[in-house]
């Protein structure tokens, strides 16, 4: 019985941690952006403005949750939940420390792919159900963007899979005991990072919601809690990509013994989050066709080449 | 815990899905929905393959499923492109309105 309880505890812990980190991201991002942009950022609510997140959440919860009459009500409500669910569920496969993982699936990576591809629906359906021109445009952009970058994401990870010989995340982490995969799979790492950003439609790839051209893209019509779900979902996505990068390329919980494995993982995840926030501060948004052209014309051949060379090296050794 | 595979039930499930897909193909007029129904049937067929593969603990069923998947992907890509083209030409994707390629002409009615 205690095994089951431990299991449930781990699940609850993962969910809580993911949500907390995602919420904390909001604060961290604002502070870091301010830092890099030579300003202060939120610093009034609580120490260092740390309670700003709470204030935001209260604001979101109490706002009028309005569904437009011209919208397709059911799908309009369904869409934000999809992004939450599909992102949250993938955390189940990330090994936190030796022996602690929600689900050690033998198709772990494929599980991630499956749900990340399902994540596209939230965006697409939100845009469609809003019955709004800008929302629809954003949705279509998002659909093509996510559909395309899923391909490179999958291909970029195949090098890791080949070197491990398994889809299981636990196996992958254990295979990095000596060398992190970022060293032999640096190209794969780069592609995965770019594709991951595109999948979570973060700046600079926030084309489905680009405010300056499409008002707010697919979530133009959303407000209140449903907007909050999209909002949190995006930060969950960042967290997920960071966690996956840490797990797949940076050795996961591997690290010197003076810190517990979970601490190493958290350090790596936060490092990745900080890096992604830095990217937001540093890079402009590309044009829509540039994005797709970059994907199909550069990333795809590059990832295939990476795969080919990796395969050749594995075969020769 | 060693479980038994519910072979017959799962095969029946596949057959039922196939039948529903067939109904879908036959009653829908929207071509996209007809194609979706075809996907249902393909999926059911693939499922039957996997059931057989699992029954004998062989990978062949899944291999066949992968081939069916590939085929479905290619079919959908081309099919949807055709439907888009058709929509541009006809401003409709109602299968019942696309009967221009019939062979019932005035001449054949007379004889």
């Amino acid at each position, binding site marked *: 019985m205690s095994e089951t309880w431990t299991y449930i505890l781990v699940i609850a812990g993962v969910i809580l941690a993911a949500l907390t980190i995602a919420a904390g991201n909001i604060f961290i991002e604002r502070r870091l952006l301010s830092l890099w942009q030579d300003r202060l950022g939120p610093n009034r609510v609580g120490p260092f403005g740390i309670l700003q997140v709470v204030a935001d959440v209260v604001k979101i919860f109490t706002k009028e949750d309005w569904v437009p009459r011209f919208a397709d009500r059911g799908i309009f409500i369904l869409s934000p939940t999809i992004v939450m669910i599909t992102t949250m569920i993938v955390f189940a496969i990330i090994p936190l420390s030796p022996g602690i993982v929600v689900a050690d699936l033998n198709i772990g990576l*494929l599980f991630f792919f499956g749900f990340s591809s399902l994540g596209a629906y939230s965006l697409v359906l939100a845009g469609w159900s809003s019955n709004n021109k800008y929302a629809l445009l954003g949705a279509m952009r998002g659909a093509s963007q996510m559909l395309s970058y899923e391909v490179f994401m999958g291909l970029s990870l195949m090098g890791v899979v080949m070197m491990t010989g398994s*889809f299981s995340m636990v196996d992958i982490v254990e295979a990095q005991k000596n060398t992190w995969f970022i060293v032999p799979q640096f190209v794969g790492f780069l592609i995965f990072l770019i594709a991951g950003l595109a999948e979570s439609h973060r700046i600079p790839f926030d084309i489905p919601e680009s405010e300056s051209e499409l008002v707010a893209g697919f979530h133009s019509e959303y407000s209140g809690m449903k907007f909050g779900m999209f909002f949190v979902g995006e930060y969950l996505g960042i967290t997920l990509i960071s966690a996956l990068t840490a797990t797949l390329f940076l050795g996961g919980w591997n690290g010197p013994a003076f810190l517990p494995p979970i601490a190493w993982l958290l350090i790596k995840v936060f490092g990745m989050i900080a890096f992604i926030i830095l990217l937001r501060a540093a890079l402009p948004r590309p044009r829509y066709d540039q994005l797709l052209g970059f994907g199909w014309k550069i990333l795809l051949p590059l990832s295939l080449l990476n795969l080919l060379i990796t395969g050749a090296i594995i075969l020769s050794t | 815990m060693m479980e038994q595979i519910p072979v017959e039930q*799962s095969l029946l499930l596949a057959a039922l899905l196939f039948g529903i897909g067939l109904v879908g193909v036959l009653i829908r007029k929207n071509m996209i929905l007809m194609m979706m129904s075809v996907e249902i049937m393909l999926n059911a067929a693939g499922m039957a393959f996997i059931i057989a593969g699992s029954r004998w603990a062989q990978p062949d069923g899944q291999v066949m499923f*992968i081939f069916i*998947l590939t085929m479905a992907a290619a079919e959908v890509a*081309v099919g*949807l492109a055709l439907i888009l083209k058709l929509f541009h030409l006809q401003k409709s*994707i109602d299968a019942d309105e696309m009967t221009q390629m019939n062979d019932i002409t005035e001449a054949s009615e007379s004889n």
Partner: protein
Amino acid sequence: MLIAFYIAGVIAVVSTIMAVTRSNAVHALLYLIVSFLAAAVVLFVLGAHFAAALEVIVYAGAIMVLFVFVIMMLNIGGETEKAKERWLVPKRWIGPALMAAILFAILSYAILNQPVATASLSIVEPKTVGISLYTQYLLGVEIAAVMLMAGIIGAFHLGYTKRKSKHRFLKGE
């Protein structure tokens, strides 16, 4: 696990029926995605984990997104509402349903009349599938690759329209 199988099976059947009968294309599509997810669960239960993952990734994740994409492009979601009355009359569906019922009956007869010795569940590893794909079925993989290529080229060709520049500054591009 068997409970999961039955639940998923019922969900699959119900959502497929809904997918077939919805007049709104996007609703039908959503039901279909649910049906595929349920089918993926069924496959997972049957021990074909790899196929289950592919079902989600490719069928539910990629192919269906294409459908949504096209539906969105053509904006036909509400258009079929008008035709609802027309096609839901029994005259329309009773014949096909009868035909499908006969087919199902024949298939059921064929399934239930064969002596199927039940076997214990054994998970077929993705690795086994991969090895089988690249040894025994190598030719099939090649052919499938060629077919995909043909599909890509065909779709590209069908979708390609010569870009017309409206503005004189863009004529040269």
